[in-house]
């Protein structure tokens, strides 16, 4: 796979028998053993993911917080050091440039964890719109990111680290050593299960991954690929940029109003978001028949096309197929009967409340 970038764990992935696929310009593990087994490991015990393809953009200097406040849909000024929030970078038309997590490192420093496919776009966007006296750095190449996810994550982490502190809550982070390497550890993730994201210097990644794997195996931990990451995030109804979100999607259509600060006007794109009519809404659905609803399939209601599927997969936890898709707001109501056009048949489906799986 020429032309693709590799994470520092590439050799280890191969040794572990990973099937590697191109993703966002990187050669990434899609699975090691089986997506279903890896998914189940995360829901029951723990899974360890290399997500070093994700980007990290650091904002520092006297203007950093003002920049974050202007660029992000979520409040940044009120975010205390040691806390993390989910938010959106929006454009002037109210579309989503990227969905990110923002970490308040210090009074005058933030960093954003951004989608791999958007790193260059985000960096240019941030540089262009940052407030004065803000230093913007793309640190993606220098640091790596591991996601340790699942109910046994804290126990696994504690085997190789003095972390986490016993009272550590969700969306908090601390700095400390993990398996002897300096790390930033946040209680966050993209699976809908408890867990941690562990930021490390690129050259320490392999040793820490190996140490967590060894400590976690007896507790049921498996190395997990992007295949399980996708089915896990879909069960949790977490949006994936390029599927549920893009440069034209309003956060309100995507059901992300709680990550958009009020009153409007306080950030880049806010006026456009407030001024736009919400003509479609993201709905979660469960397929009532066999089959899999895939991204791009048409959603039908009362004999006509009303939207399309943005993500779909079998839910290993529910044993049924689930999906997300945009439909007129009046249909995005739990209980609404819809149909998914799967090849030459119309498969019955029901709109349901999300997340599909609560944990």
């Amino acid at each position, binding site marked *: 796979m020429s032309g693709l970038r590799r994470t520092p764990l590439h050799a280890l992935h191969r040794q572990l028998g990973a099937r590697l696929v191109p993703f966002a310009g990187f050669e990434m593990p899609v*699975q090691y053993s089986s*997506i279903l087994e890896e998914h189940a490991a995360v829901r029951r015990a723990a899974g360890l993911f290399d997500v070093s393809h994700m980007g990290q953009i650091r904002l520092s200097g006297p203007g950093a917080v003002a920049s974050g406040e202007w660029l992000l849909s979520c409040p940044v000024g009120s975010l205390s050091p040691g806390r993390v929030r989910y938010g959106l970078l929006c454009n002037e038309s109210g579309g989503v440039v990227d969905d990110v997590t923002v970490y308040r490192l210090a009074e005058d420093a933030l960093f954003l964890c951004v989608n791999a496919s958007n790193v260059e776009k985000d960096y240019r966007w941030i540089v262009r719109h940052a407030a004065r006296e803000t230093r913007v750095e793309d640190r993606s190449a220098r640091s790596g990111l591991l996601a340790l996810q699942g109910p046994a994550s804290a126990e696994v982490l504690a085997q190789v680290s003095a972390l986490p502190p016993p009272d550590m809550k969700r969306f908090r982070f601390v700095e400390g050593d993990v398996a002897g390497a300096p790390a930033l550890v946040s209680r966050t993730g993209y699976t809908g299960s408890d867990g941690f994201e562990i930021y490390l210097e690129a050259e320490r990644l392999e040793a820490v991954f190996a140490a967590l794997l060894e400590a976690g195996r007896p507790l049921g931990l498996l190395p997990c690929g992007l295949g399980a990451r996708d089915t896990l995030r879909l069960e949790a109804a977490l949006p994936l940029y390029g599927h549920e979100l893009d440069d034209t999607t309003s956060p309100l259509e995507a059901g992300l109003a709680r990550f958009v600060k009020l009153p409007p006007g306080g950030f880049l794109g806010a006026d456009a978001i407030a001024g736009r009519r919400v003509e479609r809404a993201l709905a979660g659905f469960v397929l009532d028949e066999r089959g899999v609803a895939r991204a791009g399939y048409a959603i039908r209601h009362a004999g006509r096309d009303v939207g399309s599927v943005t993500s779909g*997969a079998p839910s290993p936890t529910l044993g049924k197929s689930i999906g997300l898709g945009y439909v007129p707001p009046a249909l995005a109501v739990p209980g609404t009967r819809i149909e998914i056009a799967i090849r030459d048949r119309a498969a019955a489906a029901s709109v349901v409340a999300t997340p599909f799986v609560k944990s």
Partner: protein
Amino acid sequence: MAEYDIPGDLRYTLEDEWVRVEGERVTIGVTDYAQQQLGDIVFVELPAVGSPVERGEPFGVIESVKAVSDLYAPVSGEVVEVNADLADHPEHVNGDCYTDGWMIAIAMSDPGEVEGLLDAARYRKHVEERGQE
């Protein structure tokens, strides 16, 4: 390096199906290489008994967690038996692709078409040529 089971007594297609020839009747499924490449199989859509199938044309669909793929008929004829267990147990394709994971049986309209299928040695070469992950 992955290892692939390719039984010597079967015939194969370039699309990674296996064919067991018993007179004018053939039983077909997907190979170990195919099931390993696809990963966890979650759904198999097969034609009804009595359906006509044509060599090289899709007769069904196999879905893994990540992807959907067509199944191609290795020979022409009529579907005479379908593995109904796969509706509830698509994972048999992963577990026993050459036994419990069989898909359909076809009564051939032109038994000479069998000559166009690959033997195990040729199929193994085809698998190896595509490289191993």
